[in-house]
């Protein structure tokens, strides 16, 4: 993994912007397996490195630490974000989201508390907490859950023991004109030979943003802070102990696409990790982590004008997860590296709603009736270095899930739509094989197949009138729902020459028992103005297919031209188009590097999405859009490796009105925006 970003000397990594970095990882992976002693990644595994020792382009860190986690995700091929406001965008991978993908923090399972999907866990993590974001588009041995579509892992930044400087850090601040958006952050590290402490914090605040033509998007404000700490102690040469704590609190967060905003969204994330490494032992490493996290979330409609809301509601929710994992890397032979992981966690969800009508008494219900899930799983992966040209990684995961409802009122609530027992046990898991074949110095072919099953989420089993704004239906859970299963195949080609590199990958994901909402005609909706009630249920088949294409060209070393393109196509068993499927999207940039100056012109565009099933899933066609962004960075270097990075940028230069297909309620995105950021590194 450590060498996975290895790139040819002809490519000056210092010049790369983040989209290029991703491209480089795609390329790098093909070389990395030649390094016998490393466990490099598959081609369908991508990383966005933000900071830390692996980070080659330190200048870029200054920018990445200040942009939102969402922004970092949005430029990654294969990831598209569902937008409900100017905050807490929800990632999808190749048309899959929520329970279909695993989203973890440093391998820790964590679940948002909001019934309306306002708080994907990516909203509780800031780039200042992170070393890198790891994206996998297929199951692999590192995942701590079952998924049918890979996952995103937010790898936390760790303090560096015995760092070159005992005290180091970064402080920065930035301002964006469009939403009067400020952010200010600091990270500090104190390092000794035996231990090191890293603390980081960030504060963000934004007013309503303005779409094109200065159209104010009401209820799009937010405010948040996030603080993290990591203490690492070297117990001895081979053993380190690491303590992590992150607290993230957001307040007064507007969701223009929804009927309610958020009063507060708080997360408390803690972990203790033990690492054993031995570079010449067969048992190469063991990592064991125990963790606990808690999410406290409360929706709020008191800021909305009275005519917009039929009655005042309180909708708080909590999510509590604790668990552990332990993973070991063992060299079976010179050609076989075995990865074993055991993991277990328990998640408890509670969501309730109290309504206060003008006339009549207040009403109370549970929308997630105190659901609980206990999961235990085992992963086994063998990386087989077949010969100097071929590497095959194969393995699987077996997982057991116990789901139940833990309170009397929760059990009673379930009787509203289900006769049987709340408790249930499921088995799920996956088997996978990925191969890389290096045809020549410049060319490698990679591909794989996997079969995966995932259990339905607690919402999909026990949810009770969860409102979905996209199709305007209330959703009810289904304890009899089957596991969703998929057979996934991917095939790709990497070409890399002196001045240019191309990576192309295609995938097919064929589902059985695909989970979606099916209309229950006899049910009447609870949410005023909704069109009816749907129940989570399986449909026989669904098919997702698509791919990513990246190209990078360095005609001269100071100039870099790149293009990152993604496309997904999805149909259900009737041939109708699936929802939340992004259209063809392209991010193209020209970057020019002149001594301490760095210029970047970026084009972001998407084709129209007309593949929608309005009748069944409530989506409307989305028009195409094209944007231009421009940025200039200047770096000042001082003594003792101190530096100042300054950046000025213009986003959406032509103030183009647009929204993306996954933007709920077709709310226009930000218009013209000027950005200024400075970061001081010491």
């Amino acid at each position, binding site marked *: 993994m450590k060498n996975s970003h290895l790139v040819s000397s002809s490519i000056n990594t210092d010049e790369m912007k983040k989209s290029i970095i991703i491209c480089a990882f795609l390329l790098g992976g093909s070389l990395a397996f030649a390094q016998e002693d490393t466990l490099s990644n598959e081609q369908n595994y991508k990383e966005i490195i933000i900071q830390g020792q692996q980070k080659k382009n330190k200048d870029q860190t200054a920018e990445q630490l200040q942009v939102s986690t969402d922004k970092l995700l949005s430029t990654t091929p294969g990831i598209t974000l569902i937008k409900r406001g100017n905050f807490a965008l929800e990632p999808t991978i190749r048309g899959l989201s929520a329970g279909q993908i695993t989203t973890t923090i440093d391998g820790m399972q964590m679940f948002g508390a909001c019934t309306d999907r306002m708080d994907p866990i990516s909203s509780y993590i800031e780039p200042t907490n992170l070393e890198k974001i790891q994206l996998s588009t297929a199951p692999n041995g590192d995942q701590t859950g079952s998924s049918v579509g890979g996952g995103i892992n937010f790898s936390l930044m760790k303090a560096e023991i015995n760092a070159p400087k005992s005290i180091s850090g970064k402080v920065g601040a930035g301002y964006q004109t469009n939403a009067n958006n400020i952010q200010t952050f600091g990270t500090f590290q104190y390092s000794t030979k035996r231990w090191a402490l890293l603390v980081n914090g960030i504060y963000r605040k934004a007013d309503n943003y303005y779409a094109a033509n200065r159209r104010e998007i009401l209820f799009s404000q937010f405010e948040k802070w996030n603080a993290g700490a990591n203490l690492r102690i070297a117990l001895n040469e081979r053993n380190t102990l690491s303590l992590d704590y992150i607290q993230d609190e957001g307040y007064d967060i507007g969701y223009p696409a929804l009927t309610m905003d958020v009063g507060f969204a708080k997360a408390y994330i803690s972990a203790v990790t033990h690492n054993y490494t031995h570079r010449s032992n067969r048992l190469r490493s063991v990592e064991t982590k125990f963790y606990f996290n808690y999410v406290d979330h409360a929706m709020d409609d008191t800021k909305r004008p009275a005519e917009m809301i039929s009655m005042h509601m309180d909708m708080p929710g909590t999510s509590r997860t604790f668990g552990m994992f332990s993973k070991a890397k063992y060299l079976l032979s010179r050609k076989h590296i075995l990865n074993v992981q055991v993991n277990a966690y328990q998640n408890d969800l509670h969501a309730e709603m109290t309504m206060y009508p003008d006339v009549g*008494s207040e*009403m109370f219900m549970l929308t997630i009736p105190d659901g609980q899930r206990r999961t235990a799983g085992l992963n086994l992966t063998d990386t087989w270095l077949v010969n100097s040209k071929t590497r095959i990684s194969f393995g699987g995961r077996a997982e057991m899930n116990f789901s139940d409802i833990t309170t009397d009122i929760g059990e009673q609530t379930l009787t509203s739509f289900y006769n049987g027992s709340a408790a249930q046990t499921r088995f799920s898991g996956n088997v996978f094989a990925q191969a890389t074949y290096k045809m020549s110095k410049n060319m490698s072919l990679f591909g794989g197949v996997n079969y995966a099953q995932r259990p339905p989420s607690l919402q999909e089993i026990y949810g009770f009138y969860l409102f979905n704004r996209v199709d305007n239906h209330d959703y009810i859970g289904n304890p009899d729902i089957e596991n969703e299963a998929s057979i996934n195949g991917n095939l790709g080609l990497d070409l890399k020459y002196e001045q240019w590199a191309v990576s192309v990958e295609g995938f097919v994901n064929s589902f059985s028992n695909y989970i979606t909402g099916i209309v229950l005609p006899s049910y*009447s909706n609870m949410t005023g103005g909704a069109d009816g009630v749907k129940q989570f249920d399986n449909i026989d088949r669904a098919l997702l297919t698509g791919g990513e294409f990246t190209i990078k060209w360095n005609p001269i070393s100071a100039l870099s031209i790149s293009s990152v393109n993604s496309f997904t196509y999805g149909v259900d068993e009737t041939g109708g188009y699936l929802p939340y499927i992004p259209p063809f999207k392209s991010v193209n940039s020209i970057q020019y590097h002149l001594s301490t100056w760095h210029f970047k012109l970026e084009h972001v565009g998407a084709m129209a999405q007309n593949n929608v099933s309005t009748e069944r899933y409530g989506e409307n066609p989305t028009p195409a859009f094209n944007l231009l962004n421009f940025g200039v960075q200047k770096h000042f270097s001082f003594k003792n490796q101190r530096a100042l990075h300054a950046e000025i940028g213009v986003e959406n230069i032509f103030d183009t009105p647009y929204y993306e297909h996954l933007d709920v309620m077709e709310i226009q995105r930000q218009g013209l925006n000027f950005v200024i950021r400075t970061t001081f590194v010491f």
Partner: protein
Amino acid sequence: MKKIFILALSGVVLLASCKKDKEEETPTSGSEYTLIKKDTTANDLVVELLSKTTTLEIGYSNLFVRVKDFAGNIVDDATVGFMPMMDMGNMQHSSPVEQPEYNPTSKLYEGMVVFTMHSGQGDWELTVMVDGDSVAFPVNVLDSKAGTKYVGSYSGYGANSADKYIVTLVKPFNWKVGMNDFSIMVHKKQTMMDFPAVEDLTIVMDPQMTSMGHGSPNNISPSNAGEGYYNGKVNYTMSGDWRLNFDLIDEGDTIVSGAYIDILF
């Protein structure tokens, strides 16, 4: 050290004795029923009117009668009858009843009266007849709590508009969120004094949360259980105020439309 030990020991003893006292204070029998009224008939029988609730409330009311002779012995073979009477000043009427029958287990005559009105609307008097004699108890019937309606009187529908029907929620009930078993009764107002139970109706129920304008799924409309009782299942998807709407259908003819019971929990 010794002192502490003694102190501790005495503490334990004290605690134990306290606990014992409490247990003894808890009466195990007799508390189930509250004495509402008591009187002696002309033939020297002592008649006690009892209820499982401490007060009487509008709607379906289980009432119990204990009959003793002058020596205090339980009389188990008397003929006991209820005759409720509402005096509204300008008119008088009775209400639906189930005549008491002796239950050897409880040693009580168990019956039921539907109080169709509360005492704010007039004066209730319950006449209890025992073996030809009778005692008349003025009873205070409270209204149910605001936002609830446990009994209603409805004019017949269409061709039956001259008829009147009483729809009553059977108590006790213990509402909870989710699926609830419940019963209603239907009586017909034959005369001002005669309210026979109506059997073999088809009932269509539609529960609604009036303040939100939505219903609930999976309800089972009450079906005929005999003697005027109809048993069904109602699904409360949330707590709050619910209205159970009923249409009463007799051999295909709707005889009452828009009867309702209001629930609040």
